[in-house]
Each structure stands twice: as structure tokens, then as C-alpha cells.
């Protein structure tokens, strides 16, 4: 569950004021809105990269507003993916697990499981520079899911993909939701994505988030 209660965020010149919404556990929520409305800012506030001025952010009824990004345990896939240029695909999947001092065996199991779900088993030893858009997207998704987060935030994950890859990714995202039960918040401006994936839909307009049916 993710809940924003009366949250105000300052982001450079503009402010998002009194934002409130709630996503139920295990649901796939889509947040739509035009470019420049502050969708990314909301995601950054939820995962802790941007501090909020007032209000509360709750994850599973815990107030995480003052927690550091690492303590929140939220998976985050930014729009530019921001893969680690010096690491292989496998190292991406292991990164968060190493920080949690996972045993080599549990790490190997998790990598096998994730790469299977995401269809990247053949890429494990590759560096990230040569990956295609869809492959890079899957790696970023795997990195964010590796440590079993209860919440996953996706920032326009499909915007740069061609039509076929996009449909494939829809299937991958549905599979992720079914196999992990993670609560997802997906930011997009594509109606198609919303129709294909959403359990709950929100629209960000003029600084307000409204749930739409």
C-alpha cells in the first residue's frame, strides 16, 4: 500500500501542494498527466530522493516521510533507467542483495529466478552498454525487484520502446505483478498502457491528483 496524505513538494520553480492519494496493496496503479506536471517529482518523493515540505508518505501504514531512500525498501525504475555502466547484468541483479549481505547461494537463486521471469537469462554476463531498449528496461526492472520490495515505482518505462517491445513489456509487467504481488505505481502519458495494465488510475492535473475510473 502507498498513501500520500496532504503532501507538499517543492521542485525548483514549481510546487505540488496538498497531494493525496492511496494505492491498495498488490494493485497496479497508473498515474497519468502531461509532461512537466510533476509526475517524476511525486515518484522521487515516494522513494525518498526528494524531501517533502509537509504531509505524510505511508508505505504499508508506516510513515516513511523522514526515512532515507535505502530504508524505505522501494524499487525504483527511473525514466532514463540509470543502469550502472561499470557492471554486468548479473551484477545489477546482485547489487541490492550484496548490500543486504545475502549468501552466494541465495543470491544465485534470486538471480536465476528474476532473470527467468524477465527473460534475461542469456544476458547475465553482458555489460549494459550493448543492450537494446527492451533489454535495458528489463535489467532496470530486475535490479529494482531484486530485494523483494513491497512497492515498485516505474517512471515512463515504456515510452522509448517500439510497438512490439512495448506489448512484450506489458506482458512482463503483468507477470511481475502476478508473481510478486508488489504494489506498483506506473507513471505514463499513454492511454494504451493504462488500459492494458491499470487496476487503479490517477490523473495529475494542475497540481492535483485525482482518481479516475
Amino acid at each position, binding site marked *: 500500500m502507498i498513501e500520500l496524505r496532504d503532501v507538499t513538494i517543492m521542485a525548483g520553480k514549481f510546487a505540488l501542494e496538498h497531494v493525496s492519494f492511496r494505492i491498495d496493496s498488490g494493485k497496479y496503479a497508473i498515474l497519468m498527466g502531461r509532461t512537466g506536471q510533476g509526475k517524476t517529482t511525486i515518484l522521487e518523493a515516494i522513494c525518498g*530522493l526528494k524531501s517533502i515540505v509537509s504531509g505524510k508518505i505511508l508505505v504499508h501504514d508506516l510513515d516513511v516521510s523522514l526515512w532515507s531512500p*535505502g530504508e524505505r525498501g522501494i524499487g525504483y525504475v527511473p525514466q532514463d533507467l540509470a543502469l550502472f*555502466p561499470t557492471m554486468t547484468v548479473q551484477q545489477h541483479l546482485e547489487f541490492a542483495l550484496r548490500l543486504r549481505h545475502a549468501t552466494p547461494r541465495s543470491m544465485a537463486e534470486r538471480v536465476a529466478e528474476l532473470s527467468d521471469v524477465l527473460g534475461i537469462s542469456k544476458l547475465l554476463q553482458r555489460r549494459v552498454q550493448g543492450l537494446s531498449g527492451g533489454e535495458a528496461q528489463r535489467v532496470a526492472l530486475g535490479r529494482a525487484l531484486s530485494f523483494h520490495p513491497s512497492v515498485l515505482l516505474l517512471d515512463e518505462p515504456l515510452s522509448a520502446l517500439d510497438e512490439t517491445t512495448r506489448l512484450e513489456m506489458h506482458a512482463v509487467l503483468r507477470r511481475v505483478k502476478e508473481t510478486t504481488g508488489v504494489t506498483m505505481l506506473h507513471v505514463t502519458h499513454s492511454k494504451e498502457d493504462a488500459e492494458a495494465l491499470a487496476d487503479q488510475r490517477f490523473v495529475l492535473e494542475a497540481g492535483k491528483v485525482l482518481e479516475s475510473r
Partner: protein
Amino acid sequence: MSQPYTSPEIAETGVRGQMARKSDVPFFLVMGGLSASFVVLIVLMLAADVMFTSFADFRDALLKPEIRAAFRLTLLSCSFAAIMSLWVGTPLGYLLSRYRFPGRWLVDTLVDIPVVLPPLVLGLSLLILFHLPIGGADGWRLETWFRDDVGFPVTYRWPAVILAQFSVACAFAVRTMRVTFDQINPRAEDVARTLGCTRGQAFIQIALPQAWRGMIAAGTISWARALGEFGPILIFAGATRMKTEVLSTSVFLELSIGNLDAAVAVSLLMVLMAVTVLLILRAIGMRLTA
């Protein structure tokens, strides 16, 4: 040489005219000529040095114990100054690149001062810093404190050489590292933090491994700056033979006693050292890329 210009009427009626054929030769002549003037100047200077000195002069100069001591001190002090510059320049470059803190513009400007300051002024400033009495004429002095309490006198000794080199070299290292981190996507460090990294872990595990190329560049430039350092060393460390003499000082000392042959030989030695260090660091860079 050129085809006739196609008149507007023909263009308008839809007849496809041919563009007058223009040559790219003038472009390459002008650009190449201007570029070559600089490259040729460098080559000619080096060639003149080589032609001036004979191998025997070169060998004689290098066999002098004073020059050998200066060579050793130069190698050690430059390497030490470069390592210190990298050690300080990397975190400072990172902070300037990633964070907006109060007084950032001031720090940013201060860091550049050693670059723009006349070298003699820098040396004099160091000297004054270490000898300014605080609290009356018999007050506390930095140099006295270092000498008596720490047991490590600085002025007119080898530490002064390194400090003088470091104070300029580090400014270049900071600049280089800052540009390096500016070019590295900070989002990767952000994502690492959501995965559980502290800021420190994100710096060490994500930013630093991407910055090695910049670190090699910063190390090279610091080393080269330290090698060329002369004015501040002369004032702050003196030019005592066998003690605070580095190769740039040797050139000056040999020149001042009219020994032009030795001065040129030492200069050539410095050219060789600079080129060697440049090549070694380039090679390391290439190996890391491969």
C-alpha cells in the same frame, strides 16, 4: 572550375539545377595551417633543444650528483603531490559537482585562485602563512609550531617543495574531477540509494568506478603541473643544492652560473620525464578501456 549558377526561374519551374561545385580544399588549408603552426612550434622547440646539446653533455649533466639528487627529489615530490592532489581533488570535485550548498560559488572561485595567481605570489603567500606571527611580534607561528611541537619543520626543506607543488596541482585536479563527475549521470547514484546504499556507498561503488578515466587525467595533469612548478618552490623552499633542488630549480641554477649546456640537458631530461609519465598513464588508460 565551377558550374554555372542555376537561375531562380529554373529552380521555380521545378527543373533541378546543379549546385555550383565548391571545393573543401580552402577549409582544410586554413584549419590545417592554423593547427600546424602550433604543432610545428612545439616540434621545433624540442628539436632545437636536442640539436643544441650533445649526448656527452647530456650524460655529463646527468652524472652530476646535484642533478641526480634533484632528479630523485623531483620524481618523489611530483608523485607525492599528484597523489595528494587526487586524494583531495576527487572528493572536492564530487561535492562541487553534486551538491548545492551555501557558499558553493565561493568555494568554486577559491579553488581556481592558485591557477590564476602569479606563481611568485603563491610562493610568497605560503611563506607568509608559515611565518606570520599571531598575537604580537613574538606570537604563535605556524612554522614554529610545526618545528617545535610536531617536530617537522617545513620551510626551506623538502616538505615545502611538495606543499608548493600541491597547492597548484590540486587546483587542476579539482577542476578535472569536477568536470568528470559532471559528465557522470547522478541518477545511477540515486537509484543505488533506493537499493540500499548510503551516499558514501553510492560514491564508492557507483560514481568512483565510472570516474577512473578522469582520475587518470587528473593525476597526469597534477604530476605535470608539479614538474613545472618553479616560482613558489624558489621562494618557499629555496634553491639549496642537494636539499630542495628540483629539476626546474636546476635549470635556473645552471643558467645563473652560465652553464647553458647543463641547463638544456636538464630541460631535455624534464621533457623525457613528462612524455614518459604521459605515455605510461595513457597506456594504463587504454588497458582499463580494453
